[in-house]
């Protein structure tokens, strides 16, 4: 599949600010851009206002493993309902500082997605309007989708 259009966006990003893009992967007709997490809101604003990425199709987190450094990543799946373009942004986060700025100011739908990512992986979204658990019980201990989380949970919360 031709990814020329998507590569253009990457070029636009690089032209706008050379610090933004860290790495680009072009595979299976999809383009994944690893970006600098400091500029996440600016990049999203740029893509939304200038490049018509008006829909945040998904926002999810990933634990790459306890040994890996940086351990966490946050993925932003963008979609343009005008031009039917799809672009994936990736931000890598270290275990010591799993923090990133929220993009709720860009797409309101990021609110619950970020809550879910926080709930299951413990990634903190700064300036989020209401960052609390969404799926797990509010008194839950730990973050269930982390690779080092025990399957049966911690006593006595698991009621096992």
């Amino acid at each position, binding site marked *: 599949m031709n990814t020329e259009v998507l590569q253009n966006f990457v070029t636009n990003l690089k032209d706008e600010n050379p610090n933004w893009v860290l790495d680009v992967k072009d595979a299976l007709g999809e383009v994944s851009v690893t970006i600098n997490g400091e500029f996440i809101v600016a990049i999203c604003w740029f893509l939304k206002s200038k490049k018509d990425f008006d829909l945040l199709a998904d926002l999810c987190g990933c634990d790459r493993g306890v040994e890996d450094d940086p351990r966490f990543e946050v993925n932003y799946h963008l979609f343009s309902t005008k031009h039917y373009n799809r672009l994936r942004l990736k931000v890598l986060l270290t275990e010591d500082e799993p923090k990133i700025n929220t993009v709720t100011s860009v797409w309101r739908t990021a609110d619950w997605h970020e809550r879910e990512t926080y709930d299951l992986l413990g990634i903190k979204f700064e300036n989020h309007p209401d960052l609390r658990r969404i799926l797990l019980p509010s008194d839950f201990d730990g973050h269930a989708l982390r690779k080092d989380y025990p*399957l*049966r*949970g911690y006593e*006595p919360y698991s*009621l*096992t």
Partner: protein
Amino acid sequence: MGLENQIFESLPDVITVKLDAVINWARKSSIWPATFGLACCAIEMMNSVSARNDLSRFGAETFRASPRQADVMIVSGRVSRKMAPVLRRIYDQMPEPKWVISMGACATSGGVFDNYAIVQGVDKIVPVDIYIPGCPPRPEMLVHAIMMLQEKIMTESVKDRRDTIESESRKSIVPGTLPVTEGTALESMARLSDVKPYTVESKHERRRSS
């Protein structure tokens, strides 16, 4: 001359009988379950009231949408940690006499879901009268469970089935784990720091996680 007349002639006007026997007999003839389906077992539960299995033969066909009108809670499926306090509240809302049937492997022991999200046996939340094995159990097994429950009811005494004192029931409100409506008294309770998850002492031994 009908049968009734013959009986009336042969019986005295007043007969002596144990109160428990009469009340239990009345109770066991109409055990209304609460409408409370949790997972795939609920499909079998619905099937058990359908034409083929016809739970109404045992007086248990009327699934009530309100726990206030229900006699038996059929826990049909896996109970998640988040559902546990909700389940307990429904149980608390049911008036005495009330019974609980744990339907299927998941409700009884957690089944294949041996993880942090699923309560490992509903008997950690509510007292259970009848356990049904199976994954899911066939409707016949649920019908059999109802019949076993009827047998159990006949052995009980009215004295065993008193309503719980209200203050006792109030304690079972679980702040923090129940869905809290904004602007209610529960909301301020949910913000307390010493909020504990809902745990009920179980007579069964707690299983150790590895």
